[in-house]
């Protein structure tokens, strides 16, 4: 590990030991990477089709959504884009969001043995779970590329901004995920709440449908759901001019993302000290 600063003695006392936290977090980045690598490398062990699961799940969801919302319920797509691509462009950020939320929120409890035996900034654990979600996301992205080739749909210049929106989806997930992970340590009730939230969220977020189907006077209110801004951003990147971004709504979504991120981090930091005692 990078050399520690010994000029000042480390003082351990109630409510203390927080000054160096963010520096410590940076020092422990190798641990973060190695935990991420551990999660990735054990993920598909002892499965028959292995990494193909990463393809199968999002693909089947896309097919089901296209059939139910597009063909059965006949919801409109955006512009000229094929419905499957519109759905998939929404499904990608949603899956990223929900898998980060699910994995990260339970991560502290499943790593209880580490927490009660070794010191490191605890934020390392929920953050390390992001890697698994990102790899699945990468796989899904390649399915999307294949889908676009199949339909002969070319994206506009906006596609270059996609990494930015990926980061945004991650930030949107990390705020609540970090908050929930800290809460689960104290109250295991959240174990039951989180799957419920992701399940409901799938239907209240514009995943299977376009956010344009929401009446105009409700658009602003609808954007309080941060995933509305994130998903719309994705669609804008991928579908280009066919899906113009709704400015004020997007800003509200971003504001909610930032608030949740700060709140999540603060809650986590406050709760962190007692993790080893409670877990």
């Amino acid at each position, binding site marked *: *590990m990078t050399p*520690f600063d*010994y000029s000042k003695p480390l003082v351990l006392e*109630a409510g*203390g030991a927080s000054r160096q936290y963010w520096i410590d977090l940076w020092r422990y980045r*190798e641990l973060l990477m190695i935990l991420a690598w551990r999660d990735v*490398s054990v993920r598909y062990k002892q499965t028959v089709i292995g990494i193909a699961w990463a393809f199968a799940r999002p693909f089947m969801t896309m097919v089901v959504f296209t059939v139910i919302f597009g063909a059965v319920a006949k919801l409109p797509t955006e512009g000229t884009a094929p419905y499957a691509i519109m759905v998939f462009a929404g499904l990608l950020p949603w899956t990223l969001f929900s898998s980060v939320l699910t994995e990260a929120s339970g991560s502290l409890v499943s790593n209880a*043995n580490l927490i009660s035996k*070794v*010191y490191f900034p605890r934020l390392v654990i929920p953050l390390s779970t992001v890697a698994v979600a990102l790899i699945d996301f990468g796989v899904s992205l390649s399915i999307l590329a294949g889908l676009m080739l199949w339909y002969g749909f070319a994206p506009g210049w906006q596609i270059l901004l996609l990494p930015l929106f990926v980061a945004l989806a991650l930030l949107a997930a990390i705020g609540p995920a970090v908050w929930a992970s800290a809460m689960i340590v104290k109250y295991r009730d959240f174990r039951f709440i989180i799957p419920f939230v992701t399940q409901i969220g799938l239907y209240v977020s514009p995943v299977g449908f376009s956010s344009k189907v929401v009446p105009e006077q409700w658009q602003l209110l609808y954007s309080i759901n941060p995933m509305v801004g994130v998903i719309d951003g994705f669609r804008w990147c991928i579908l280009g001019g066919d899906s113009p971004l709704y400015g004020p709504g997007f800003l509200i979504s971003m504001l909610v993302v930032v608030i949740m991120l700060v709140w999540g981090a603060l809650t986590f930091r406050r709760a962190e000290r007692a993790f080893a005692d409670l877990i």
Partner: protein
Amino acid sequence: MSDVIIRADKLGKKFVIGHKTELHAVLGERVTRSITGFWRKGVDMLKGRAMVDGDVLEEFWALRDVDFEIKRGEVVSIIGHNGAGKTTLLKILSRITEPTEGRVEIKGRVASLLEVGTGFHGELSGRENIFLNGAILGMSRAEVRQRFDEIVEFSGVEKFIDTPVKRYSVGMYARLAFAVAAHLESEILVVDEVLAVGDAEFQARCLDRMSKVADAGRTVLFVSHNLAAVTALTTRAIVFQSGRVYFDGPIDAAVAHYATSLRRVKSEGKWGKGASTALISAAMLDDNGIPTDRYEPGKPMKVRVVLQTNGVRGMTLELVLRDEHNLPISFYSTSVFSQVSLPGKAGRYECDIELQPYWLAAGEYCFDFVTTYTNVSVDHRVDNALRFFVERCSPDSIPFNFTQNAGKGAMAMRLAGPVGFTEIEATGDELQLGPR
């Protein structure tokens, strides 16, 4: 003073624990209790407090008013019975948990080993786990890579280094885990009971490694129940009892104090009760009838057990003597061996039992006390109820001390008559032995 590397000042750690009071099989009571429990948990949650299960809450100080200083390069052992606060102290020093009051100042990097193989993942190979465990213990990848060969060699599992560790035997697993930890570089090393795993050969190797670490001038804090290891490795010990420093000083004196701290805590403990009887307390008495924790081999062993009975007939008191490995070595039953049952009148009794002299090897022992009904069903059982020490065992004034850690059992055999040799006539089938 500049060479003080760890300084603890009025250190304290409080926990809130919940007790379940006895539940009567009355539906109404169950309902009201679950409602009040639910209410309290809800209030706790709204206030952001931790939830505690139980009907009665109690504050419990795992550590209180702990002061000590440790100098650079010192090797100190922390001893105390279970629940004395040792592990809590190590957890505070290694930053896993925060003190409730007081403070600790630490100069230097602390490597803490509260368990070997923390974070080992069964699906990963030995090689992968070395890197994973190294990172968890605070080593950089470069550091691990640099020492990789050394670690593998020390562990002795070269052949299986690319096998998932879930296929390892317990011993191999422990060896690999300790090997990683043994190659940590830090100013301060904190070790908790890691020697409890592995076979004797491996334990010897661990001890050897630990003394090398100590010789290299690093500061070591070492928690162990293995008094032999503690005495061999360290010169100073801090004895904890009920969360306080009971003794701090040279190792020999500390080991003696440890023995008395054990006895005191046991007698304070609550032993619970059985259906018809309850064992209340027990003590070993010296010649003058004064409680002691020393037994002098060759003298009658006097044990006093306080118990209560509801007067049901056919109850027996049984004693099991165990050595320091907790193996039973001797047994006595009042009704089987002496045709004596517990009194048939309800009440509390002192039961004095005087046993014939034993030549117990020096070391630690304990008694389990059990009351049984007609020698069949156990009514009340208290394990490790009475601990005591034998300091010296030299039957017939032999010039050395026969101890339990000699590995030759817990009791010296004595003669009923002289040892005799009588030569047997040669028959021709004598074995060829080495030259004289």
